[in-house]
């Protein structure tokens, strides 16, 4: 789960970590009041959307489609600047390299005091899957695309694995500060910050914390100038405070409803709806549809123990997508019983008045019973023995890849 920069900075501030003063705004008036109250001549006016690349993005008028402004993060040197930038940002569509062409309408703004920067650094904390340990990555090449740095100058990225129980030791913090060529007051400021930030990462069950840039001010203080924070969905049960930060307008509506029904759904661009049990098999089903010349309309995993009602919900979610021209159901029953799926398929087809072609492949636990139920239903359901056969059939039924 992702949150906005202003929310991340709120968490940092509460944890005593060094961030600049800033105000979350939703209107131009609020932005102007924020400027007056901050009392700084120079402020940053920052678009708040979940995607990255905001600084280099473009703002468009959502109605006319005209470009309104280059750059979703602006430095304002006057009250007038704030007014112009806020007007150009709020309610307009920000397109960055991470949003896709559709972009995101910006509803939130963060007005933050400026500071005198000496140097920009990159800092991230995440879990290293291969080492099964939290990993801190830091670089003196801040403010840049870190993937480019990793490509062109991998030695510039310093990595530190941290024992989750022990946290960042003073020695580790010293070593990292030295690697970043920090000395004196800046090193002391860095050490305190990195220990606190790591503790927050663990306490809040973060999936990733990325600060780009982390800056050293002219007064040798380290300041977290950016805050990209995401959380482990599986751990949200113990963080009601984090759940409250969720901005549903940033998430796909159908994906939210699927999640509520215990389904895992991701919308794609094709026209063949898929209903599968198991994430790996669901991905393989998409791959095989493509292999036979079709395009999958979605990823949908009904999970291990779906019941009739969930199967029905899954069908209705697939059918909400107007581009869907046919559906392939692919179930290898383990925990899932094929007879339950068959009953769910029939209930859903009848309730939703399904007219699009439907191919069903059932294998595994109780598959004979499942196939018998489908055969005796009298409905126009095509069956298949293998995934390849199922994919071939559905592609043929909708008439190729159109």
């Amino acid at each position, binding site marked *: 789960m992702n949150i906005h920069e202003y929310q991340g900075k709120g968490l940092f501030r509460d944890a005593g970590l060094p961030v600049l003063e800033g105000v979350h705004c939703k209107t131009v008036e609020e932005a102007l009041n924020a400027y007056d109250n901050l009392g700084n001549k120079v402020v940053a006016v920052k678009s708040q959307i979940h995607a990255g690349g905001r600084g280099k993005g473009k703002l468009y008028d959502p109605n006319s489609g005209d470009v309104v402004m280059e750059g979703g993060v602006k430095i304002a040197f006057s009250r007038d600047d704030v007014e112009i930038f806020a007007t150009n940002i709020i309610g307009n569509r920000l397109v960055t390299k991470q949003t896709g062409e559709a972009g995101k309408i910006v509803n939130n703004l963060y007005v933050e005091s400026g500071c005198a920067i000496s140097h920009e650094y990159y800092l991230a904390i995440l879990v290293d899957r291969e080492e099964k340990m939290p990993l801190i990555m830091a670089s003196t090449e801040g403010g840049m695309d870190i993937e480019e740095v990793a490509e062109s100058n991998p030695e510039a990225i310093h990595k530190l694995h941290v024992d989750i129980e022990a946290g960042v030791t003073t020695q580790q913090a010293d070593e990292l500060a030295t690697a970043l060529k920090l000395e004196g007051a800046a090193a002391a400021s860095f050490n305190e910050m990195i220990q606190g930030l790591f503790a927050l990462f663990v306490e809040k069950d973060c999936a990733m914390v990325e600060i780009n840039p982390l800056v050293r001010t002219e007064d040798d203080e380290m300041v977290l100038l950016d805050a990209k924070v995401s959380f482990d969905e599986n751990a949200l049960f113990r963080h009601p405070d984090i759940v409250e930060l969720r901005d549903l307008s940033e998430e796909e509506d159908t994906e939210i409803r699927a999640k509520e029904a215990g389904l895992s759904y991701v919308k794609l661009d094709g026209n063949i709806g898929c209903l599968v049990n198991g994430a790996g098999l*669901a991905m393989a089903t998409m791959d095989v549809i493509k292999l036979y010349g079709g395009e999958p309309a979605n990823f949908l995993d009904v999970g291990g123990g779906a019941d009739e009602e969930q199967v029905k919900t899954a069908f209705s979610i697939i059918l909400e997508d107007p581009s869907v021209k046919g559906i392939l159901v692919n179930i290898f029953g383990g925990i899932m019983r094929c007879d339950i799926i068959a009953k769910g398929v029939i209930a859903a087809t009848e309730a939703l008045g399904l007219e699009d072609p439907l191919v069903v492949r059932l294998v595994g636990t109780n598959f004979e019973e499942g196939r018998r139920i489908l055969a005796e239903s009298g409905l126009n359901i095509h069956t298949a023995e293998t995934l390849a056969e199922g994919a071939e059939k559905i592609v043929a039924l909708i008439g190729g890849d159109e």
Partner: protein
Amino acid sequence: MAIWIEEDAKIIVQGITGNQGTFHATKSVEFGSNIVGGVTPGKGGQTVDLGLKEVPVWNKMTEAIEATDADASVIYVPPRFAGAAIIEAANAFKEVKDGGVIVCITEGIPTLDMVKATTHVRSIEGVRLIGPNCPGIITPGETGGAKIGIMPGHIHAKGRIGIVSKSGTLTYEAVAQTMSIDEGQTTCVGIGGDPVNGTGFIDCLSAFEADPQTAAVVMIGEIGGSAEEEAAEWVAENMSKPVVGFVAGMTAPPGKRMGHAGAIISGGKGTASEKVAAMEAAGIRCANDPSEIGAVLLKSLQDAGLR
């Protein structure tokens, strides 16, 4: 022979009194697996009816292992308690009999709980963790066998192919594919689709390489992380037996989590095509479609003079 779990292995079920625990333990017993009892804190002294037999319940893993000399445990407890259940099992196996296999089926365990649990398990020699978020491990036998997990038992048969997979249902596809060319399995291991798990591809591949009964291996990967690439490198340097592969997620878009917590292409890394390229470079023949795994495996067996 098989890897890690013999067909008559004695198995304890953690969370046996829950719906999932009772249901799957009953299925294991029907398959002929040696379920010797279960653990649910606060329910020690009770018994659980598993259809063909009734088994005792203990409060603690140490008591259960002392009473039964169990070789393995399987965990069906809810996500928020699963990390602690793994640690309890690891400590108990170490304390009572110097080793054991822990199979964690539970899906949805917080990642940092798994970081703590795997760090702990790694520090204890002789204890192996399989999973979490996996179908489990099965060693088919002459009659039945050891089915430790949620896979449908009836699709398996004893044979000479080892299977290792990140995905549950794709493992079943791989099993069905071996059966389609009249080959059975030594052991099938689901290593799970979470970002942080216990046993990995290389652990399984090296065990299959060392197992005299295993003639060839099927390896099923999916997008996310770099475990497949590292396994491919290991295979190129160490594996003498044929390995056949499949990687799911060729059509997955970057930045979107495809069901499994670990199945996400991030920062352009972890794509299926990169993984397939690394595997093929290591001599692992890959199928484009799970329905072709049987044919690719047959060809590999023939080329190795095994058919």
